[in-house]
């Protein structure tokens, strides 16, 4: 019996050995990427940094976390970040709903395919290219200004409105797709039945479509909300002088060399996301993904 054959006999006899061989690599990866990284983050947040040489010292303290929870700066920035993320999510859902509805229920099969490709197309371009494109669109004398100035408007310039606009643009495909898929699952017969029973379009949307679509909308909102929550590059490019949580983490790692504080700040979006995901789970949206 060749060794290869012996191994295969062994494996076919013992199913647990097969299972171990199959799962070790992915489980190791999961453990290394998620659990160890998260644990390392939590542990780093409890260390301290030598203010002169900038070296991380392993001295256990809750100072960083207390600073982050009680500091006025972090509270303001956290609220601002949540506000931006919520606004981006709302804007995206409002834009995505009619587009997804048209794709799923109105367009023919051919147009539907073209629209799906069109929605996915922006994802082929780099994130940075798109953010810089918005920078030039919103600049003085840029495209935006030249379009609205004849009507007495002006460009919002760089700042939080520009951040919301750019992020909403960047994450729109991630919001359209789940809602589109959710709408596909709403049977046409239900819409017809609603019409037959005398409901107008608006009534049908509010009473039939939206309730069935709720899990899909929540799933879509997880994308736009979580992606906005951790973003710092867009803020840097079009955010003017404003900063979000991601920027605080970035400056503390890059400029301040204060890893423990950065780790403590990074715990804020993580806790927000845990709360958000728990709420989404309660609503049953996660099973719908």
């Amino acid at each position, binding site marked *: 019996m060749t060794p290869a054959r012996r191994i295969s006999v062994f494996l076919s006899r013992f199913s647990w050995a097969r299972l171990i061989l199959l799962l070790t690599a992915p489980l190791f990866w999961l453990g290394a*990427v998620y659990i160890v*990284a*998260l644990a*390392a*983050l939590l*542990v*780093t947040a409890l260390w301290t940094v030598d*203010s*002169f*040489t*900038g*070296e*991380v*010292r*392993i001295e256990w303290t809750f100072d960083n976390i207390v600073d982050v929870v009680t500091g006025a*700066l972090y509270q*303001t*920035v956290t609220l601002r970040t949540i506000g931006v993320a919520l606004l981006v999510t709302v804007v995206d859902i409002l834009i995505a709903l009619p587009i997804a509805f048209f794709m799923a229920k109105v367009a023919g099969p051919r147009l539907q395919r073209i629209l799906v490709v069109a929605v996915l197309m922006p994802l082929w371009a780099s994130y940075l290219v798109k953010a810089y494109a918005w*920078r*030039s669109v919103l*600049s*003085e*004398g*840029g495209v935006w200004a030249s379009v609205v100035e004849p009507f007495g408007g002006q460009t919002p*310039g*760089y700042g939080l409105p520009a951040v919301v606009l750019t992020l909403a643009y960047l994450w729109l495909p*991630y919001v359209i*797709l*789940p809602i*589109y*898929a959710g709408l*596909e*699952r709403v049977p046409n017969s239900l819409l017809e039945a609603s019409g037959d029973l005398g409901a107008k379009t608006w009534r049908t949307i509010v009473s039939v479509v939206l309730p069935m679509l709720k899990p899909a909308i929540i*799933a879509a909102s997880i*994308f736009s909300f*979580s*992606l906005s*929550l*951790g973003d710092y590059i867009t803020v840097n490019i079009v955010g*003017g*002088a*404003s*900063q979000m949580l991601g920027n*605080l*983490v970035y*400056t*503390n*790692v*890059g*400029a*301040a*060399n*204060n*890893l423990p504080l950065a*780790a403590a700040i*990074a715990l804020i*979006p*993580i806790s927000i*996301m845990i709360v958000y995901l728990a709420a989404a789970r309660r609503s049953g949206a996660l099973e719908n*993904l």
Partner: protein
Amino acid sequence: MRNTASRRSAIFAALAIVSTTALLTACGTASGPGGDDGGLPTELGDFEGSVSILAWPGYVEDGSNDPAVDWVSGFEDETGCMVDAQAYGTSDEAVNLVRSGGYDVVAASGDATLRLIAAGDVAAVNTDLIPSYDGVFDFLKEQEWNSVDGQSYGVPHGYGANLLLYNTEVVNPAPTSWDVVFDGASAYSGKITAYDSPIYIADAAVYLMAHQPELGIENPYALDEEQFQAAVDLLKAQREHVGEYWSDYLKEIQAFQTGDSVAGTTWQVIQNVLEGEGATTAVVLPEEGATGWSDTWMITSDAENPNCAYAWLDWIASPEVNAQATAYFGEAPSSEAACDFRDDCEAYHAGDEEYASQIWYWTTPIADCVDGRTDVECVDYAAWTEAWSEIKG
């Protein structure tokens, strides 16, 4: 249907991984201080055949970016030391990389050098072993950012000032003072720009030195609690009028081209680019003086190739190479004779001691006041960083 669903979950899985990792920050570990400087080398041995260099981008060019820009090949041919170079983006990154070990030579700015010296990451340098050191401008030698107690820790490379850049069409009359970005900033509200780094607090301190002498600021990097608070308050007031902060120099160039920014701090090289593109901008060294940078080539304390490292320090400070390297980066050379190989020395005021004396070179603020005061404790860099986040709000 099925297809859409499985593609969707694949997208979700990918997104989940991306967003989760984006939220995480890597963990760092501490590294102990390196050896001390017990005993300087008094003579050089044989070259080891290789040298590992850490420097700002554009400082170690071997022709791979631009065939015409190459001062590494000549060094390799002459000494047989093969150069292995790595570029870094910020002073803090440089400090981290040096601590990770494996580098022989580092080119550091003044806001990194003191930290490296204090932590024992770099060794004292015997300048007698570096013939080119004699050609370096005297006013750059034995300064507080490259020497401790008269002992030199490296060879000066190049220097420049953080100037005031303004749009000549918008800002009238032409400014001669930093006033235009501080107390007078409201005239150009929303179009002021500032350098996005805690070290910019020193720019406010330079302004206060001239405009609020009662604070008694002697050195913008040695601020006691009260002086520091005054600088922070000034910057918080400025924040109302700042359109954006810049740290990427291309971002500032673009903002001045479009007119989104009309006045703010800058580097000479930015004005050179703007001028080349026909923008209506000009720079001035304001009457209050300015902050600036002065870079130093240093040898790490755990260098495995010290002889090649000394050879590099000598090579990079030699007039022709110093001229090439500093011209490429857009700063004044440190070598007096370098201007024989450059035709733009005037733009950078190379060797102009009076101009240079108006520049407060970046230095790491530490608790022991660098201006020599012993009766007060100064605000250290960690607090500067914290305050900078607060200023931006």
